[in-house]
């Protein structure tokens, strides 16, 4: 599976996506303190809220791996079930994030307020955008499991979706640490 060309190619693509995030992280770290008189992270972020989001995503990455396990075992119903759970966790995560964003905007702390807020919204928002793409991809994958026989080609496609989803949780670990964690401590 992991020596399949398409999986390797996708893995290389994921690496390039990691580099995009690295640039966004750099911009965030450099601009963290440029609040232009506005609020800093410590004032804006609610750690329990963020912990919930983190646990949701962590659960989803685990249930995604379960879905993949059942795909390998050709057990379609269990696979779809676990991917559905993953989807629900991911959607809830996205909902919470959108809620957080709308609260900030309502309070006058939008991305236009300062460089710090611009970089916060961009980094976290780009991750959220990737999550949305992941959710769309997951829906297509569940549909594919339902509709198509699980040949090695089909399994490879679903595996790539799962790789994407796992990778998104790993990026979130760093967002949790660098954005919210460091924001809260410093």
């Amino acid at each position, binding site marked *: 599976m*992991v*020596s399949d060309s398409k999986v*390797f190619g996708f*893995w*290389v693509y994921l*690496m390039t996506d*990691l*580099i995009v995030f*690295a*640039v966004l*992280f*750099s911009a965030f*770290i*450099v601009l963290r303190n*440029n*609040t*232009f*008189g506005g609020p800093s992270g410590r004032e804006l972020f609610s*750690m329990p809220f963020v*912990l919930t989001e*983190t*646990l949701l995503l*962590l659960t989803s*990455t*685990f249930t*995604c*791996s*379960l879905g993949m*396990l059942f795909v390998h075992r050709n057990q379609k119903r269990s696979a779809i079930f676990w991917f559905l759970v993953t989807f629900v966790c991911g959607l809830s995560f996205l909902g919470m994030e959108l809620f957080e964003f709308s609260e900030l905007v309502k309070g006058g702390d939008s991305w236009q307020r300062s460089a710090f807020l611009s970089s916060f919204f961009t980094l976290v928002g780009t991750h959220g955008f990737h999550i949305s793409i992941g959710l769309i991809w997951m829906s297509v994958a569940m549909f594919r499991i339902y509709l198509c026989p699980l040949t090695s080609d089909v399994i490879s496609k679903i595996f790539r979706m799962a*790789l994407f989803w*796992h*990778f998104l*949780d*790993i990026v979130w*670990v*760093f967002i*949790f*640490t*660098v954005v*919210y*964690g*460091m924001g*809260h*401590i*410093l």
Partner: protein
Amino acid sequence: MEGKPLAFRITGLVGSLLLTLGAYLLIIDPGFFYLTKETAIIAIVILAALQAMIQFIFFLNVWREKGPPWNLGVFISTISIILIIVIFSIWIMHHLDYNMMPKMKS
């Protein structure tokens, strides 16, 4: 571990969970572990790196390829690039800001 895929995944979950909660406690109250703010930052970054490694190993299965380790090679070079991007940017921008930015910036 190959023969117990479920146990494998649960190990990944438990490891990640512990590291997440550990980091959370450190964030909420660095003093609880008798750490200063700066040390706490280093600690949570290390915890994040560890969790990333666990997730790479247990969920992404990077290390389990047959033949030459190309996935691993590409991964290591990407991590190097990322470290260069982040660390050098911080270093360069720190110096630039110190030398070039007006002293009374907000």
